[in-house]
């Protein structure tokens, strides 16, 4: 099993969610996050006063999938999240040792 973690632009959220549902991803965790990468923060000016926005708002999507689904999921997210502009985000793939469905105690891929 792998966890696919994607940091994307907030306004691509609906597309990514729909695309993932279309490739039968059952569930996901979505978090509003802030951070910076190559798209550094920016300055906002109001009435002469500068407000530095160091952390840019992003959406983090996490899904845990069986190994054989990883490529498809990564590709799906990358395609749906892409605008071609800076700040489109990143996708990380992380190994997952175990999964447990709390209600039933099921383990492994059956718990996904």
């Amino acid at each position, binding site marked *: 099993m792998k966890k696919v973690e994607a940091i994307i*632009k*907030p*306004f691509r*959220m*609906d597309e990514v969610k729909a695309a993932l549902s279309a490739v039968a991803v059952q569930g996901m965790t979505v978090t*509003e*996050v*802030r951070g910076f990468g190559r*798209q*550094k923060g*920016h300055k*906002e*000016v*109001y*009435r002469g*006063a500068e*407000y530095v*926005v160091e*952390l*840019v*708002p992003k959406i983090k999507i996490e899904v845990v999938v069986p190994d054989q689904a990883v490529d498809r999921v990564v590709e799906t997210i990358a395609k749906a999240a892409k*605008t*071609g*502009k*800076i*700040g489109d985000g990143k996708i990380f793939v992380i190994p997952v040792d175990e999964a447990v469905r709390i209600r039933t105690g099921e383990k492994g891929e059956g718990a996904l």
Partner: protein
Amino acid sequence: MISEIEKEISRNGEENLEDIERFLRNGEAWLRRGHEEGLAGREFCRHRASFIDRVIQRLLKRSLSLLRDEKSPPGISLLAMGGYGREELSPYSDVDLLILHPPGKIKHLENHLQAILHPLWDWGLTVGHTVQTPKESLRAAHKDSDLFFSFLDARWIAGDKGTYLHWQKEFERTISRKETEMILEIRKRGEARHARLGDSVFVLEPDIKEGKGGLRDYHSAFWAARLRRRIQTVEGMPDSGPLSPKEWQNYSRALDFLWRVRNQLHYHYGRREDRLSFDDQESIASSLGYRGENPFLATESFLKDYFRQTLQIYRLSWNILDKCLEDETGKPKGRGTGAPLEIAPGFSLYHGRLTLTDANLFSRNPLHLWTVFEIIHSHGVELDPDLGEKISEAAGQINDRFRAAPESVGAFLSFFKRRGHLSRVLEAMYETGFLSRFLEEFDRVHCQVQYDRYHIYPVDVHSLYAVREIENLEKARSPGGSVLEEVMGEIQDPGLLKLAALFHDLGKGEGSPHTIEGEKIAASIGKRLSLSPPRIADLCFLVREHLNFVEIAHRRDLNDEQLIFRFARSMESGERLKMLYLLCFADLRAVGPAAWTAWKDALMRELFLKTLHLLEKGEGLGKEIRERTLQIQAEVMELLRGQIPPPRISVYLVGIPSRHYAVHGAQEIGRQILMAERLREQKVALEGEEKPEEGCEEVTVVARDETGLFSKISGVMTANYLNILSAEISTWENGVAVDTFRVQNLIDESLFETRRWNKVQEDLDRVLRGEVAVGALVEGMATPLFQKFSSSRKETRVRVDNGASDFYTIIEIYTQDRPGLLYRTTQKLFDLELSIAMARISTKVDQVVDVFYVQDLSGAKIEDEEFIKKIKEELKKDLEKLPLPK
């Protein structure tokens, strides 16, 4: 009921366990059936207590007969405590027993206890018990307040009544020594309990027992009345005075409701559970018979009832508590001292609370109600509970005449206009029921909730909180504060903003989106309050758009200039935008503690600032420009009728940037659209005309936008001996680039000679098809003619401005005019991987000012200082290399 069930079971007066168990089981089955058929909450609880009473009585009887003690009773007395004592047993409530026995060794005490308790445990009841002598128990209660309070509920159920009476007499004596102390303790505990559970009636997952407005509030009130007024049971409440008969009626109705919900909750879980968890609210509502078009609506109306009733219980319980505290000395406890202060005729301020000194004031003239709110607005004082009741009564008499009276309208609006304690005023209006009488629109949304995890507070409470947020912002204003605070300080009509905050959600529960209905409601209230038409329009605008702002901020690409442009245009003015921004902030903050996050803050501020910058620059956004745009669009539709299907024309017209409408007329735009249509068959469309009075030619080029397009076109112009004097380039939303050039012909042959014109067209076509490189064309041209240019050398300057636009980096180039200049410049920008969205090229005599709006290839502004430096240097170097006329 009990006797009927019992008759079936009992056999010849002898008690045996099977019979008693069967009696209990039948009783439980009867209760369950009763509950499913709608048995009232209170009745259920009382029946269940009676069943348990009877079971315990029979167990005791059996035990006595088993041990042959009947002739010399052991003096044991069985008392029901806590909820069982008050006869309020839900299906899985604990059964708490106090077993009293006389001092000294009691024969068979252990055996009796076992004979009574073991079967109860075996049958699955949760029985708590304490075995003590009266003296021991009273000593324990002296030390342990929980025990003390549960003793207040004590009720004799079986065994030796004498022991009980003795105990009771002693306990009553303890009560008189500790009453004030214990009432204060009840209060303190209540406050701590509420604080622990969110300090609001309106929480996502209410605790039906411990939460604010839950049953514990009622217990507290009962205990206080029990201590102070010496009532023995709840039934004594109406006669003991803290509640009026009407209030008592409401109170018992609310309690009845709560018990019924609790019974359902216990059955739902099959155990004691007092928390109305979010996931179960839907099925609880449905089991309680709530129906709606869909389960959500049913749940919403269940929660609405739930909150109405708990609010009732909270208010009335705390009124009872307060009154019981006041009793002793006639003075409220725990507040300042001092003499009453007359603050207005008929009103005095006493211990920080507003009281009424003229009991008939409101009945003589209900308009005096406004005086109460005026005092609260100016001084922020609290209402005395008695005055609150008087207002509630008087509010019942409010009619249309009262609502329409100029005094009413004037007073109400003044609270919004003047700075003061507006939220306090609204809270007092809300709590006394005045608000929903004066503005009946609030009646419909009273306790109206939205069944989701996000919206915690019902609509009416949420609206009040939203006003409070605006007020807080207004008060918090400090130099160097947040953008929100700055903006608040600039608002010209804060009163209107506060009205909008109060009315923004009144359309809820009337279908989706609620802003449509909400706008109508706001308009009708606005008219009733005699607001001026422009203020009504602003109010409607704010109500209508408040969802839109948040939606765009969170779900749309804020780097899309056209999007921001259209949004800015829909705002019409900076003032409206500012109010909308603040309203949306207040709205989110008032949803619940979790709704306003730094994440949302950042996106909403970005949308606000970008839109405001556009509005303040006013480019293409002014009213005249908007009207001009509409006018041009209508004319173009007319011009192209019959040539292109109208829906296609519309697609074009919508996609044309406002800036374009500002500089081109209907004729030109119509022609450009026809040219764009030709792109279906050809790569580029070219048209030109002579402008003799200006001594130049105008050339329009329409092509699909691509990177480097501008440099390719200007290269072709140069190669064809055309000097570009000025250019307007714009990109339409459907990807069509429309570039208009004023050119100066550098050779004698007219540009519009067929041969020459065709050559220009052909060159453009070949370059855009990639058949020939534009550089090769420029290099291949015969020696340029320089004689028309001045030879005086002027310095080339390059400026890069990132402050003027939120979307583009602006590059300004000041240099001396010479052939190929524009081609060279745009080629350099292309090499630097900059894409040009707009350009203004202008030439005055021989001095050129070229302004380019650029982004990097990812569509972002150029923020990197190193890169900006590189752009400046390379442009300057490159242009200085370009030969000047000799």
